[in-house]
């Protein structure tokens, strides 16, 4: 299946100068040999990265994209084996290369940037010594020269005070700084190929934006080719020239970025694009199209098209033929779908029927809530400071902000896992801010339920899935009698669209999405008035995310429950929420209805957050990015004036540093805490607008 080889590069439409191939992966097959079984992680994979090109490898967890990167580096662990095919780098064969040959390539010619920079850096060695190792190893320079190169490189990745930075240890740096160090380390020996394995996953959005900008800039400066591995379509769309979509170890579609995202041909690609929330639509105008089912395990792969069990276009006799290949469909665009000509992209469902919640009865009122943690000495951590907002019945209020903004602490106080230092949280009129869960009366416990980011924290691994649902029903006496309880369990499972057979499985036999459904069923089993959902889908794959979000929205609407939806994902919030509360370092920066917050006239911080969202839609007008400098300060040393003053791009002047900003009433429901006055705030341009004509 040497389809790529048969196509001379630099053909018609790409218009790129004829450049040579840096990396040529051909029919690669990767297997993991366990004690009893062999798992084929990647059955066969081919792609090329050309000089100076940025190639994006996209896929959900388990699709084999990271394994491929590790195979390129020759680092598959003791069980991983390259069972076939070739990896050629600058013409040299890497499969079967000796340890010595690999050492000369690793770090020198191919370098890597990892997903979790904290753990990728050695905790007991200084940044300087870890950086200097690279030139010492590969460039034959002296220690002092190596240190000088390290310092220069740190300046290149925009880390302040390089000399001091060299002496620090990884734990003394923030996540964004750590990733810059890893990038610096990778670039020190001027490699010709850089592998980026989910380089910004786990970083805050504004930090991510800065890291991506940096990568783009360094790439053109050092003319390095990139192999960018990510699950984030928006990121790939923006940074890569060509994209390959992987599914269950196979390339299902490949093409130039614009072409592929504008005219996705494979049903999986189409599904992926349609299931991510985008900033221009909310839940009233578009529902997320979820891909049904889940990614097959390597041993569950069907014959023929691996996507068949989830595909609406499946046709027996066509799609289950074993010789399905990547097919050229014009230009560089290739698709592994026999029916690509028929696969019309389903238009996202436009819905208008959901009206706003009409009667506004107050369900939750948070006022002046403050939570301080005494850290010994005279240091206090200000997790929340005079936070106030309301939620009406059946309303979804989203709490957004980056790590350290206090949104999770707030959720803990509302649910009684923690106690407020001062202020009020009124649920149905009663102040619960200082009553911890163990002291709460049963009906209060029942009325507030929580859904966590990680469903494992509520599921007991030794009990079957239905156990926690059943216990919740019994505990709050929702139903009496064995039969009635079982009946209710069945109803709840049906509500979260799980087959009753799943009820008896242990959590470790369930997929992440199924576990989260169980967690949702458990939360709703108590018939709560308020649901606190703390990043409920951020640990899930995008195609699963959409299904869970849609489910959660459906149930919430049906049950008329109020929901606090905590998230860092603004596009998702846009899709889910009625009302948005933006927090930064423990304080509310802005709050208002979802339209007010997203449609221009916003707080500078919200503006930055929104501008950091990346959309895979190539026709969407490229937004002007707000470039924030620095990292979020530690909540122990908060800036005295406006909390955002150290990073704000619209700072008015010294007043921002010293005086807490006033609350600007933009409307009855819209408040912004900023020194910029209301009229000027109102003119903030909307950061996403109507669809423009192509990319700039």
């Amino acid at each position: 299946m040497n389809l790529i080889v048969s196509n001379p590069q630099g053909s018609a439409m790409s218009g790129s100068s004829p450049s040579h191939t840096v990396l040529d992966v051909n029919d690669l097959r990767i297997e993991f040999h366990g004690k009893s079984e062999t798992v084929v992680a990647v059955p066969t994979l081919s792609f090329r990265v050309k000089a100076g090109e940025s190639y994006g490898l996209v896929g959900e967890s388990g699709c084999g994209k990271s394994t491929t990167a590790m195979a390129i580096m020759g680092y598959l662990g003791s069980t991983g084996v390259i069972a076939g095919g070739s990896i050629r780098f600058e013409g040299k064969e890497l499969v079967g290369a000796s340890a010595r040959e690999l050492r000369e390539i690793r770090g020198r010619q191919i370098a890597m940037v990892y997903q979790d920079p904290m753990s990728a850096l050695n905790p007991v060695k200084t940044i300087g010594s870890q950086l200097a190792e690279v030139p010492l190893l590969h460039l034959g320079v002296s220690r002092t020269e190596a240190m000088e190169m390290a310092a220069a490189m740190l300046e290149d990745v925009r880390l302040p005070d390089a000399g001091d930075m060299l002496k620090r240890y990884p734990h003394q740096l923030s996540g964004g700084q750590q990733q810059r160090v890893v990038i610096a380390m990778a670039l020190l020996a001027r490699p010709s190929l850089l592998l980026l394995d989910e380089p910004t996953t786990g970083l805050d959005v504004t930090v991510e934006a800065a890291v991506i900008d940096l990568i783009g800039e360094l790439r053109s400066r050092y003319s390095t080719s990139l192999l960018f591995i990510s699950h984030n379509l928006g990121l790939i769309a923006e940074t890569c020239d060509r994209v390959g979509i992987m599914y269950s170890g196979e390339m299902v579609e490949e093409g130039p970025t614009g072409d592929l995202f504008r005219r996705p041909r494979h049903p999986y690609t189409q599904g992926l694009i349609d299931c991510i929330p985008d900033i221009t639509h909310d839940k009233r105008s578009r529902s997320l199209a979820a891909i049904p089912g889940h990614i097959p395990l390597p041993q569950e792969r069907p014959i023929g098209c691996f996507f068949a069990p989830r595909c609406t276009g499946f046709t027996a006799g066509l799609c289950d033929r074993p010789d399905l290949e990547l097919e050229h469909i014009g230009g560089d665009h290739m698709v592994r779908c026999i029916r690509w000509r028929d696969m019309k992209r389903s238009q996202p469902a436009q819905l208008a029927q959901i009206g706003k919640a009409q009667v506004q009865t107050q369900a939750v009122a948070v006022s002046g809530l403050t939570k301080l943690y005494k850290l010994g000495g005279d240091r206090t951590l200000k997790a929340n400071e005079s936070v106030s907002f309301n939620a009406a019945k059946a309303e979804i209020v989203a709490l957004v902000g980056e790590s350290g903004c206090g949104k999770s602490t707030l959720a803990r106080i509302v649910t009684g896992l923690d106690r407020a230092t001062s202020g009020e949280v009124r649920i149905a009129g009663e102040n619960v801010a200082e009553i911890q869960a163990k002291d709460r009366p049963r009906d209060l416990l029942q009325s507030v339920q929580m859904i966590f980011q990680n469903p494992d924290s509520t599921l007991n691994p030794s009990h079957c899935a239905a156990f926690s649902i059943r216990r919740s029903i019994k505990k709050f006496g929702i139903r009496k009698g064995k039969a009635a309880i079982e009946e209710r369990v069945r109803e709840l499972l049906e509500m979260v669209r799980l087959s009753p057979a799943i009820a008896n499985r242990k959590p470790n036999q369930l997929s992440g999405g199924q576990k989260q459904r169980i967690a949702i069923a458990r939360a709703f089993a108590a018939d709560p008035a308020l649901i606190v959902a703390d990043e409920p889908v951020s640990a899930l794959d995008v195609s699963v995310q959409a299904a869970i979000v849609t489910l959660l929205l459906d149930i919430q609407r049906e049950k008329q429950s109020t929901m606090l939806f905590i998230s860092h994902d603004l596009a998702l919030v846009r899709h889910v929420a009625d009302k948005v509360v933006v927090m930064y370092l423990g304080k509310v920066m802005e709050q208002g209805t979802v339209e007010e917050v997203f449609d221009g006239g916003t707080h500078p911080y919200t503006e930055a957050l929104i501008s950091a969202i990346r959309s895979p839609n190539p026709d969407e007008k490229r937004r002007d990015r707000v470039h924030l400098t620095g990292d979020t300060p530690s909540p122990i040393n908060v800036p005295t004036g406006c909390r955002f003053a150290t990073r704000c791009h619209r700072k008015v002047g010294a007043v921002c540093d010293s005086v807490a900003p006033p609350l600007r009433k933009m409307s009855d429901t819209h408040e912004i805490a900023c020194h910029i006055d209301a009229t000027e705030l109102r003119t903030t341009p909307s950061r996403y607008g109507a669809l423009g004509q192509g990319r700039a």
Partner: protein
Amino acid sequence: MVKFLLNRLAMMLLTMLCASFLVFAVCEYTPGSVARKSLGPFATQQQVDLLTAKLKANDPLVVRYGRWLGVLVGAIPDPLQDPSTGLNFKDPRGAQYFGNFGYSTLNKLPVNDVIWNRLGNTAILAGLAFLLIVPLSIIFGILSGLKEGGALDRTLSVICITFTSIPEFASGVFLVTLFVILWPILPGTSPLTSDGGWAIPYQFVLPVAVLVIYDFGYVARMIRVSMIAVMERPYIRTAVLKGMSTRRVILGHALRNAMIAPFTVLLLQINFLISGVVVTELVFAYPGFGRLILEASLFGDISTLEAATLITVAIAVVTQLLGDLGYMLLDPRIRVR
């Protein structure tokens, strides 16, 4: 830092007080035994009663403990040295000084004359053993942790487990049979005098060997576990993918991280080697600290026991402190900021 050290010092004093009180309470639960032991088994009951009265040995436990403390810090003279007891116990340092551990009823000598000597002997033995245990266990641990389940790992693990599970007396007897009886190149006892015709250095070989064999396998296994965990950490992958050779990865990146967790275990061996080597000392008739403790506790020599307790506690606390300081040195994340 100063605060940290002061804190530790206070903790040490408190631990010593508690431990000494416990030992005191257990040994002295039956009043009057001091008099009986001082006078020996042939004294009449009348003599014992008289001495008991003189020593006020029927006072409540706490009062007597207070008095013992008083003697220790030099606040009051040792009552046993009072000439009126007729015991003729004499400490050349005088009856009242700081650090007066009292009179050993077992050896009929001031405790200070006995104990330091024995401690010194044991310290030499322990020091030699420790000097061998550290590199041996690190080498074994690192090599076997390098590739879990590999041939090298399995071989070394078998060696370590076998050695650790052979009791000290068994390996002692075995080595004696081998090197003293079958192939007599070493002495079978180590009294640390040259009377038997063997120079003193030779006398250390077998006891040290027994200790090393018994102890290093355990530490090596601790290091192995830690090494295995470290080799799976992503920063090791980073180092390998920088293009470093295995040797450089291990020495430059893995070793220090792998030593963080087993560091305390290693230091704990000092405590064991000082006070827990009774069996080895008995097998080789070695005049050591462990044997002294055993003899003293069999006899009920309270003064010697108390002194030994205080010394072991002090050593334990000091190694703990060293452990913490070493931690901070090895791991920058827990340095006091």
